Every structure is written in C-alpha cells, then in structure tokens.
C-alpha cells in the first residue's frame, strides 16, 4: 500500500503526493559449512518457574535449592526445552511470575543522566502527518551546508508525483529550492512548528526538504532528523 502525504508550495497550493523510503539493503541468507541453509530460530531454554527466579521462589533456602539441583533436574522442563517457540503471544508478567490480565501503562521520563524525572499515565500521541492535512510551507529556508552539519538525517522520504499536475507541482518546488541552494524546514501544524509524527506513538522528527531539478526531471527528498550533532 503506497504512503501519501499532503504538501504545500510557496504559493499556498497543496497537493497529495506519494512518498517512498530508501532502497532496502540486499537480502542475505546464511548457509552452514556443508552449504545447507541455516536460519535463526528461537528455542525454549527454560520455562516459567524453572529459571533462577522461579527456583528461588520454590526453594527459598539456598541449601535446599542446591540439594534439589543435585538430586534431580528441577531447572529443566524435559517436555519443553529445545522446542521451537513458534507462534506465541506476547504477554505481560507480574513480579510473582503470573500473567497479567489487567495492566496499566505509564510513561516514564528520564533525564540525560538516566535519572527518572516523572512517571504519569501513558497517553497515546497521534500522528501529525496525515494524508488529508497539508504540511504548510514554512518559508524557513536553511543553507544546505548548515543542515548537514547541524542534524543527523536519520531517515529519508522521496516525494513522487501521482499524475501530470503533481509532477509539475513537485518539479517547481525542487527547482525553487535548488536555485536558492536551500533546504526548507518542514513541520506539522498550522504554522509548521510541530514535529512530524508518521504513526501513532511514532518517533517525532524535524523535516528538511531538499530539491534538485533539471529540464525534465526532479528529485525531492524530505530528510528527517531526530538527533542534533551536539556533544552530551
């Protein structure tokens, strides 16, 4: 399913265009020494109640635990160990080792030193990049050289046309940016000051639109950053 976003040019015209991500790295698979295919597989190592935490719960006295380990194999579930995990459901497990049937999610905030600063109820953060809400033309044009030295551009999206009109629309934006040798700061919200969030609870990004154009083609890339080039 193609992904779309809605973007505005410097003349307040907006259009829905398609976006695609970078090329995927080449697929690799693995073989063993004899040339037979080898795949990563998740296996059961131990089961609930048989790891150290569980055994300590069953045998609180260390001496008793040691005797149990010598006498038998309480740490091994012979029916399950070595089996493929296969299709399994993710669950939350409480401190007593039991599955949780009603859970509460919290948002924990830590500072740069790792110390916790707040703990509140978790509230979903909705996406700010929507197919039917145009990202505004902020007019904030930054020199290319300044952007590449100030921000780590960790993700990229190429803007593509979906018909002849949007081809001309995007070509003009790319040509405009290339002539000015600038990148456009892109954000969400009415004035473009908000972060770009592409899915609910997704990472927020700052966007920088780069354009290159020639007579009959264009390259328009939205560079995304969530990291400044600074020292801790």
């Amino acid at each position, binding site marked *: *399913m193609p*992904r779309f976003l809605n973007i505005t040019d410097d003349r307040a015209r907006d259009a829905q265009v398609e*976006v695609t991500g970078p*090329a995927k790295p*080449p*697929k690799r698979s*693995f073989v*063993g020494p004899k040339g*037979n*295919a*080898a*795949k*990563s*597989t*998740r*296996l*059961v190592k131990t089961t*609930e109640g048989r790891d150290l*935490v569980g055994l300590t719960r069953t045998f609180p006295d260390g001496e008793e635990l040691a005797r149990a380990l010598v006498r038998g194999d309480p740490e091994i579930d012979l029916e*399950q160990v070595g089996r493929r*995990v296969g*299709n399994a459901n993710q*669950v*939350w497990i409480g*401190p007593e080792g039991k*599955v*949780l049937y009603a*859970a509460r999610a919290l*948002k*924990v905030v*830590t*500072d*740069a030193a*790792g110390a916790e*600063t707040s*703990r509140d109820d978790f509230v979903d*953060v909705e996406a700010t990049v929507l197919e039917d809400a145009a990202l505004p033309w902020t007019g904030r044009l930054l020199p*290319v050289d300044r952007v*590449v*030295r*100030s921000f*780590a551009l*960790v*993700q*990229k999206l*190429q803007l593509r046309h979906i018909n002849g009109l949007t081809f001309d629309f995007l070509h003009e934006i790319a040509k405009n940016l290339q002539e000015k040798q600038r990148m456009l700061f892109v954000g969400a919200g009415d004035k473009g000051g908000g972060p770009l969030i592409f*899915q609910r609870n997704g*990472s927020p990004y*700052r966007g920088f639109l780069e354009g*290159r154009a*020639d007579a*009959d*083609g*264009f*390259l328009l*890339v939205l560079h995304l950053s*969530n*990291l400044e*080039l*600074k020292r801790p």
Partner: protein
Amino acid sequence: MARQVLLTLNGETSAFDLARLDRSKLYGGRRRVVVDDTGAECARGLLSEDGSVLLPPGCTADLYLDETFNVVERSDLRAVDAEGNPVTPVESTLGVAVPLEGPVPPSRLLDHVTPTVYTLDPAELADGLKAALAAGQIFEGRFAYRDGFDAQTLFLVQNDVGVFALVGRPTGFEMIRRTTPVPEPADEEEDLFEDDLDFGMM
C-alpha cells in the same frame, strides 16, 4: 584499550576515539512501562499458542539451525545473496587505516541515509585533515564497526562543537522523469517507520 577509527588522507593517518551518539545522552528518554495494580513493573514474556507454556524474559535462546535441526555455530556461517552466490565477508575497520575520499559535496551526504552517528575525539590529528575539516570540507570512507557482510559509508564532518562520523548507506533515490514507472507497492509487512516510542524531542 578501545579500538580507534584510523583515517588516512594524502598519506597522513589520523586516529580518533569514537563514541556512539545516542539520543538519550542529549535529550533524556521516555519509555512505556506496564505496571500491575500495585504499581510494580511487569516484564514482557511469551505465552505459547495453546496457553500451556509461559516463557518469562531470558527463557529463550536464538540459534542458527539447518534443515535437519542441527545447530550451526555463528563462526561457521557463510552469507549468500539472493542468487545463492557467496558474499565476501567484511572485517571491522576499527584499528585499520581507511583511506578517505574527498572532499565531497554535501549532496553526496544527502544521498545517504545515516542513522548512526559517532562523536570522534582526535587522538592524533594530521595537519592536512585538521585544516580541511576546519575549512568545512566533508570526507567519505568505508566503515564496519564489527566483522560482518556489509560495510557502510562513513562521512567525516566537523561543526562548532566537534568532529562527527555519520554512518549509513545510499538511499538509492533517482531523479524522477515523466516516464519514470510507478514503484512497486511496498510489502504489507514493511513499514517505513517501524519504530518504538520516542518522545525525546517533544
């Protein structure tokens, strides 16, 4: 002693100590925690499909197995491409002198997606490279943090606060012409933004 990044320009080698630049070191972090009704933090585990086996964290192991269920040690693995041709292993470039190319224009950096950033502290900085970085030039080289099968591209950049290595791979984006065919729809499982919560910028 930690291995260094060694970069060579015009016959002179410079050595840098590197440290991964993590968002949490700059902005702090936010994480989603699940608690029970007493407020105690819970851990994520697995429950088998039939509900009979509960696997708390640490109860599983990832191994490479062949078709006959024999374990293949990681050191014995060989990579092949989509056609089954062997892929040449790539050794770590840490501690190995890597030649720099450039200076390259900023557009070369923009043609790569660089999700990994290192701060570089010069242990030995050659005069030529020092002057070039101070003049705002950008250089490019090969980089592999550990032994594997794919080397990435490193871009050496300096700003007001220091020297950085931006590591990544080419975007593969090309100019679009009127006749450029529409790309194939992405796989349903592939998401451009399959990432976890991150609110450091908010």
